[in-house]
């Protein structure tokens, strides 16, 4: 693997701020970004990428390629929680297996953004419509996770367990981050180029700065959560690294099969490989209260997220390049 790719990824300011956050936390510095400032950054990032994606999607239109990419994304969002669930059942009870499966079936918007940034340093720009894939992949895993839990969980004595599908769909499709991302995408779609000119200084120019600030905080949070995994045993930490690699590789193959450009192939792989630490944990806490959030939150936040932004992104890109070199015929 080309180490210059890794290094190139690492010395990019946003990623460096992530390290700064981790270091600060390991040194027990009192640096902290008090609540609700992290929420300001995360809301901003969702709004900005949703809006940008919508504007791009309007430019591209629903081409052949877009439809293929979105279908592949949707397919993976449904597939991943299934096999993740059965792998996890080897060691875990139904509830935790379902919650972690949902976590890995869904996505992390910040991992997505970091991959875009990685491409930009190489002078490339992924199709903005991949943001639609991002939006599409956030919710299904939540629903699949809960379906799996209900199928395999031991039946409760008394039938009445206060469960309601409408609450699940509410949580899956109307939670804050999904709604803001999708809504901003639709607003971008509706307002097009003209709207873009209006908001560009806000949604594009200061974007990398806001991302750096947010990654600084993510570094602080990730380092803080690592300790929670001490009691998690020997199974979950490796899972939190191998699962994204597996998902990312399947993403690479799928992208190859449907003939995506290398840029878009990377975005698809990264979406498959990333795990949710915002929308899914919150939904699971309400819909699967039997699952332990001290397992799935630190896995996604403290292992998979850093792994992806440090090693994963250049790795998946390297694999895509290799695949394209080995099987050029499939292209074009």
């Amino acid at each position, binding site marked *: 693997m080309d180490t210059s790719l890794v290094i190139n990824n690492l010395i990019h300011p946003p990623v460096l701020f992530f390290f700064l956050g981790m270091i600060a936390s390991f040194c027990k510095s009192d640096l902290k970004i008090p609540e609700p400032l*992290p929420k300001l950054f*995360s809301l901003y990032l969702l709004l900005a990428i949703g809006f940008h994606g919508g504007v791009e999607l309007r430019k591209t239109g629903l081409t052949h390629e877009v439809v293929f990419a979105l279908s592949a994304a949707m397919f993976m969002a449904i597939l991943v929680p299934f096999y993740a669930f059965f792998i996890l059942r080897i060691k875990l009870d139904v509830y935790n297996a379902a919650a972690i499966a949902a976590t890995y079936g869904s996505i992390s918007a910040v991992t997505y953004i970091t991959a875009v940034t990685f491409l930009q340093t190489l002078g490339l720009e992924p199709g903005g419509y991949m943001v639609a894939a991002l939006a599409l992949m956030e919710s299904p895993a939540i629903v699949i996770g809960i379906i799996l839990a209900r199928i395999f969980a031991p039946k409760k004595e008394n039938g009445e367990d206060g469960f309601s599908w409408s609450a699940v769909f509410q949580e899956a499709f109307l939670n804050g981050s999904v709604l803001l991302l999708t809504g901003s995408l639709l607003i971008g779609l509706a307002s097009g180029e003209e709207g873009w000119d209006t908001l560009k200084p806000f949604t594009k120019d200061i974007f990398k700065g806001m991302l750096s600030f947010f990654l600084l905080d993510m570094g602080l*949070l990730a380092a803080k959560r690592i300790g929670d995994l001490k009691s998690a045993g020997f199974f979950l930490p490796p899972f939190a690294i191998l699962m994204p690699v597996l998902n990312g590789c399947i993403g690479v193959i799928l992208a190859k099969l449907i003939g995506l450009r290398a840029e878009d192939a990377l975005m698809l792989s990264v979406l498959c490989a990333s795990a949710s*630490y915002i929308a899914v944990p*919150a939904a699971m806490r309400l819909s699967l*209260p039997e699952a332990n*959030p001290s397992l799935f*939150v630190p896995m996604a936040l403290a292992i998979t997220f850093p792994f992806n932004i440090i090693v994963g992104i250049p790795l998946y890109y390297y694999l895509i390049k290799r695949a394209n070199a080995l099987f050029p015929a499939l292209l074009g």
Partner: protein
Amino acid sequence: MKPVSKVEIIIDALEVEHVTKFLNEIGVSGYSIINDVVGKGHRGVRSGDALTDLFKNSYIMVVCEEKEMHMIVEAIRPIVKKFGGLCIVSDVIMRIHRKSE
């Protein structure tokens, strides 16, 4: 100047709505909530999560008649048992209340 019960509940922040629904059904005259309570209990340290509302507690206080107190305790027992936290009760004197006394 009326002896009443003060019910104090510490519970997962995500369950507050659940509890207030019960309080409204029982028909208590009011309640107060302090959000952003951190702490430690059987489930370890709960010091909040900056991105979600996980790992955070809320404090709910209800001043009510003794009879209501029993209803509240019974209503919320399953929630507290499931999601952790605690519920304590003490006797206080209501010195001023808007419409009662």
